[in-house]
């Protein structure tokens, strides 16, 4: 057997990709891993709430109106002024808040990445026009925009998703465009051009994977921002409608009776703060893992 033939039958060596390296670094970051665990726990609890054998979110107990936490009766967070289980309502509210966060982030990821990468890659006049569109959308006052939408189309959850999604991709587009411009001149892009690879394939196979680092980080920061925005809208009464709830509406209602029933505002706020904190830790961990140069 020739040397070559021997080489050819040797088992393939598994390479360690940059992603694998980043995963390893992330797993060494205790705060980030703890954040991820909390996040998973909160998500599971919120979306598993209907299957946990808990009360319904609109089940009213006339004997337990505005009582504090009562472990014996299973009211872990107490009840609100209508006698509904606050723990259950917090979990159901979490569903709405998390879905808003994820939907808006997904929208921003897909639209923002493609928009930014296209603008940055093509450059010139196309870039100018595309980014001016972003600037114009950016300059529309968000709250005004939402109020207008709710006036025209009535209040609905879909509208809130749409409105938040419509503005959250703008930042992403800017970030991705900046990244793309810095990558576009790299030699491996030129090599792809020289190999006859089409522009679309260059964008999807070469440019986007290489600007995904900052994108992933920015994504984890978008989720809390969107959850806060939704809470803010709900607090103003433009978000979720009864009997549904979100963390924002719960806090808003709790705040009204803060002096007699503090638990109604403390517990939902605490859950939200913990979740956002966990998200931020995960974001920090991802940034450190994907960009080890910056440490």
């Amino acid at each position, binding site marked *: 057997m020739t040397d*070559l033939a021997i*080489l*050819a039958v*040797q*088992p*393939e*060596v*598994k*390479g*360690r*990709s*940059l*992603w694998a390296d980043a995963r390893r670094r992330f797993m060494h970051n205790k705060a980030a891993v703890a954040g991820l665990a909390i996040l998973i726990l909160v998500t599971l609890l919120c979306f598993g709430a209907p299957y946990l054998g808990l009360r319904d979110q609109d089940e009213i107990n006339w004997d337990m109106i505005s009582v504090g936490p009562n472990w014996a009766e299973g009211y872990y967070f107490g009840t609100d002024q209508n006698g509904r289980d606050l723990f259950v309502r917090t979990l159901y509210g979490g569903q709405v808040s998390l879905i808003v966060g994820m939907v808006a982030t997904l929208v921003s990821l897909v639209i923002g990445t493609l928009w930014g990468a296209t603008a940055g890659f093509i450059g010139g006049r196309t870039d100018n026009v595309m980014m001016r569109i972003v600037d114009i959308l950016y300059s529309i006052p968000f709250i005004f925009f939402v109020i207008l939408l709710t006036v025209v189309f009535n209040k609905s959850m879909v509208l809130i998703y749409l409105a938040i999604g419509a503005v959250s991709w703008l930042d992403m587009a800017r970030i991705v465009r900046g990244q793309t411009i810095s990558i576009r001149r*790299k*030699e*491996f892009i*030129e*090599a*792809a*051009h*020289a*190999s*006859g*690879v*089409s522009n679309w*394939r260059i964008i999807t*196979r*070469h440019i986007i*994977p*290489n600007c995904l680092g900052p994108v992933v980080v920015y994504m984890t920061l978008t989720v809390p921002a969107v959850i806060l925005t939704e809470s803010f809208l709900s607090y103003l009464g433009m978000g979720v409608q009864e009997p549904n709830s979100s963390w924002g509406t719960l806090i808003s209602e709790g705040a009204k009776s803060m002096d007699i029933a503090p638990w109604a505002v403390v517990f939902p706020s605490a859950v939200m703060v913990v979740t956002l904190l966990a998200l931020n830790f995960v974001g920090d961990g991802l940034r450190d893992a994907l960009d080890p140069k910056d440490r």
Partner: protein
Amino acid sequence: MSAPLLSVSDLKVHFDVGRKRLFGGGTPAVVKAVDGVSFDLKPGETLGLVGESGCGKSTLGRAVLRLLPLKGGRTVWLGQDLAKLDADAMRGLRREMQIIFQDPLASLNPRMTVGQIIAEPLTTFQPNLSANDVKARVKAMMAKVGLLPNQVNRYPHEFSGGQCQRIGIARAIINNPRLIVCDEPVSALDVSIQAQIVNLLMDLQKEMGMSLIFISHNLAIVRHISHRVMVLYLGKVMEIADRDSLYKNPLHPYTQALNSAVPVPDPEIEQSKARIVLKGDLPSPLNPPSGCPFRTRCPRATEICAQEMPELVSTGKDHMVACHHAGPPHLN
């Protein structure tokens, strides 16, 4: 003489670097990176491209591959004018022409495995090839350029500079191209690796019969690999000749100066040889000298040099020079 693979005539690449104002106007400024270059490249031939930094070597290499827009001139590929091809036809032709870059690591996508990188030109032109065939071709190619085929799943950052350059070469040759532009492929490598890569390129050329355009500022390497050599200065051809003719009998004062700067691995010869030291720096390409661009640093410059650019004239078999005072070095 066989028909040329590539025939370039009066090629011009200009970069607009002027500042533009929002509503038109502004200061126009143009860098003539390549200004009226002509040459023919025969199949299986290596053309060396030498010159100082910023003289337009790399620009010329990229312009030939149409990776840059041309200002003027024609590039004829096997009788076909490349300027007349639309984008799709041009993309089809890219199978035949490839490029190898100076920075080996930067020319490989860090997020792709070596196998994916090498396979990309192949899958671009033969999308119906089965995954197994692609893998077999990639592995064969890796063995050919001296890489271990079992490392197909590794990533570029796990290889050394010389190995990365071999990956770049494997990617360039996987479609059996007829022309490879080598843009300073060895200047980022250390000397022992340089020799390996250059010899690899020469072996591959012998085996596969492709033409090379070899860009370098290392005259010794160019002498080793090239059949013909072209000397560029500020985007213009100073001298183009057969390798032996150019190195033994340079006629342009600039070529002579370059040649005298090549170190000789013998201290006695090195110390006793006469060096032609050029005064000053390369003039700004934004504002090149009138007439012959080299006249500001040329020991032979006279009045006529400031007035007109000398034509590239033939002075013998396969030897052309653009100088009003062309002649052997003792004239200096």
